[in-house]
């Protein structure tokens, strides 16, 4: 788990697993909150580089961290987001409160599709 969490100053980057479901989010929630409390984190970046699957447990994990950071005025973002993950973030409404940066492979295809076109490209 250790190497999936990277701290730079007050920014914590969490490289998420292939499947962000209830089973996998449990440990990430605890570890992230430990960082927020003990290491003065002000910003969390969720890195979806490896992630192909997410369900509402992932949404709960992101929103929970957003709340915990929000209380101290922090922010949350998501990077390397593919089409599927974007769909989940979009449907849940989470896209309204966090910054989303799409995965490069997807950005071209997305122009044609013109759907869920709210995220920045990277």
């Amino acid at each position: 788990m250790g190497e999936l969490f990277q701290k730079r100053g007050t920014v914590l980057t969490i490289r998420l697993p292939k499947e962000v479901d209830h089973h996998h989010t449990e440990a990430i929630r605890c570890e992230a909150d430990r960082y927020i409390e003990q290491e003065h984190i002000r910003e969390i970046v969720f890195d979806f580089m490896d992630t192909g699957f997410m369900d509402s447990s992932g949404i709960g994990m992101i929103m929970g961290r957003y709340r915990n950071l929000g209380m101290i005025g922090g922010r949350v973002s998501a990077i390397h987001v593919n089409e599927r993950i974007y769909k989940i973030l979009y449907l849940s409404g989470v896209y309204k409160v966090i910054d989303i940066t799409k995965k490069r492979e997807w950005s071209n295809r997305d122009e044609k599709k013109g759907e869920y076109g709210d995220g920045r490209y990277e």
Partner: protein
Amino acid sequence: MEDTNEMKMEFDSYSSNESFARVAVAAFCTRLNPTLEELSDLKTAISEAITNCIIHAYDNQIRKIQIICRIKGQEVEVNIIDHGKGMEDVAKAMEPLYTTRPDLDRSGMGFAFMEAFMDEVQVESTPGEGTCVCMRKKLGCFTHPYA
């Protein structure tokens, strides 16, 4: 090819079995030639229902979860059954953002995702006895431009 096909499975409510359940149901549906997007939709909906059994029905105790899956023509029907605590008010439970476990960082989006990703979702529940979530979806019948 045969027109109906049925599969039942039962497994322990360990969270490590969530991904097994998704993969098994998806593999059962392969012969319908689903698109990748349809498969992801199906897997997400199943993941929601299984997670609910584990967290809500059984309060993280290890009990049995049952899946009954039927393919008729191009449609798959998935029933996910627990014998856990059940719900008093199903309509309320199904409202988006409603959750009884905000302490566990539940988003209250489980049923909303099931409804978004499947064609049909029916829930039967009896307090103290358990819950059956029945979901249906047509697969692989449209030529899909992105999958």
